């Protein structure tokens, strides 16, 4: 009996140890980024463009670039993704088509992001001649986000109790009315959460934009869809691997990382808060 108790204590200690080591790693990670990034942060850092061969100044073009890339990608991906999910859940015929589509979507959801970048470069930049641009980059990011949005929307729609749509149809509403007035509003919180998390993911992606949109240095903001843009994740990568004056540029990289981190965490936290708020308000 004592041996079993001993084993019990041992294993519980092990679990606690695992958690502590994990937490330890993550704390060191975050503290490091904050401690090296915070000194660089200032209002000027956020609103000024880089100067003096990227050793001074700020990251405003990168911030703007990330914002534009993400916004455009979402404009392309959200409507297509949501309507695809609607078709799959409400209109999907024939069944084999639905199944094939599901297989394709699930596979795409797991594909490494660099392959999207490779594809984007081959098709948008070279074949279609869009060049390295906001357009190519956001299209590539949109395709990246599409499978996740579709899966998430489908799940959200499925989580609405079937009686809702059945009641609606029984009252004589058409499928369209049922979807737009009953199912979609009910599923909206989850759809929204998923969409917001996708925004966070797209903002932080580097590989898809490396050769489709991102540039190392540009002073002004893009004035058309054809322009190259700076972007926060690419900026970090470029400073660390191609930077010409590491002493001043490594701190800037940390600062950029901190900005990106704060951005992504704010976006994700918003999603989580919306979700728990909506769940509490939910009446079923």
């Amino acid at each position, binding site marked *: 009996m004592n041996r079993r108790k001993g084993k019990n204590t041992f294993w519980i200690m092990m679990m606690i140890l695992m958690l502590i080591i994990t937490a330890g*790693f993550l704390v060191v990670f975050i503290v490091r980024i904050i401690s090296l990034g915070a000194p660089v942060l200032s209002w000027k850092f956020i609103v000024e463009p880089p100067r003096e061969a990227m050793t001074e100044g700020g990251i405003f073009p990168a911030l703007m670039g990330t914002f534009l890339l993400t916004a455009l990608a979402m404009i392309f991906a959200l409507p297509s993704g949501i309507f695809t999910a609607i078709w799959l859940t409400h209109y999907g015929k024939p069944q084999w088509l639905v199944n094939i589509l599901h297989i394709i979507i699930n596979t795409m959801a797991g594909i490494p992001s660099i392959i999207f970048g490779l594809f984007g470069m081959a098709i948008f930049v070279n074949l279609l001649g869009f060049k390295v641009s906001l357009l190519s980059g956001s299209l590539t990011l949109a395709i990246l986000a599409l499978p996740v949005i579709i899966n998430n929307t489908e799940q959200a729609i499925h989580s609405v109790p079937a009686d809702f749509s059945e009641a609606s149809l029984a009252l004589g509403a058409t499928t369209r009315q049922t979807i737009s007035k009953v199912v979609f509003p009910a599923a909206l919180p989850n759809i929204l959460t998923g969409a917001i998390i996708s925004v966070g993911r797209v903002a932080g992606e580097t590989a898809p934009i490396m050769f489709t949109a991102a540039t190392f240095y540009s002073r002004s903001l893009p004035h058309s869809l054809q322009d190259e843009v700076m972007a926060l994740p690419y900026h970090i990568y470029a400073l660390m691997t191609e930077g010409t004056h590491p002493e001043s540029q490594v701190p800037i990289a940390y600062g950029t990382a901190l900005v990106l981190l704060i951005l992504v965490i704010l976006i994700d936290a918003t999603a989580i808060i919306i979700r728990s708020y909506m769940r509490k308000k939910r009446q079923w």
Partner: protein
Amino acid sequence: MKGIKEKTFQAIAYIASLLTAVCLIAIIYGIFHDGLPLFQFISWKDFLFTNNWYPVYSPPGFGAWALIMGSFYVTLGALIIALPLSLGSAIFISEIASPGLREIAKPVIELLAGIPSVVYGLFGIAFLAPLIRQWFSLDTGLNLFTSSLILGIMVIPIICSISEDAMSSVPHSIREASLALGATKSETIFKAVIPAAKKGIIGSILLGFGRAIGETMVVLMVAGGAAQIPKSIFEPVRPMTSTIAAEMGETIMGDLHYNALFALAIVLLIITFFSNLITEIVFRPKRQK
């Protein structure tokens, strides 16, 4: 009137689905279309199993063995580090922690899962690699060990979160029955809860595998870039993903190097597809219950 609105809505949904299908099929088609031509130049056996990656020499060599092994080694290393840590943490959060702690821990893990990979890469190249180089008196800190470490940390939130979901979905009756029979808490965990949550846990490991093998930025910045089979865990490696990222900019559409990179993409696609397939098989029977 109603008829038109109905039809239009349905048509929009249908077109969206077609668009999605076209995009996604285009990617698969495009990868094969641009990758297969390589095999007129080199047999797929040579491509997969010889270690001779010299794409810009004359004549060029496209033996990707070291690259493929690089991907697997790094992923294996990441899983070795991540599994005990994430499963242990998951068990703790699900079975041992107080409800208050659990309320805090779950959202925190979700937030951590969203951290962009390039930030992990920065941490690796600027902080961890020099540290490891000093600690172990190595030639360089950019190697298999460091990149596995960072990749492992990156994958922990994913495995932890999904395993924890699986474990906390196990009905309390199972735990209570086990404890009522006189089992200790740890025995309950290992002999009752985990077997019941087995499918979810395996699924989370597969997801972690998929994420690790597909990761690009971390390995690009931290793995070292030597296309070789490492003789020790402290040597640099070059997985497929970082090879594609490092070389894709300098390829000209249509030439052999271009095809070779797409061939690597084919390999990654196939690995992802099978990993997904296995995950589906593991997860699906759960619904039939």
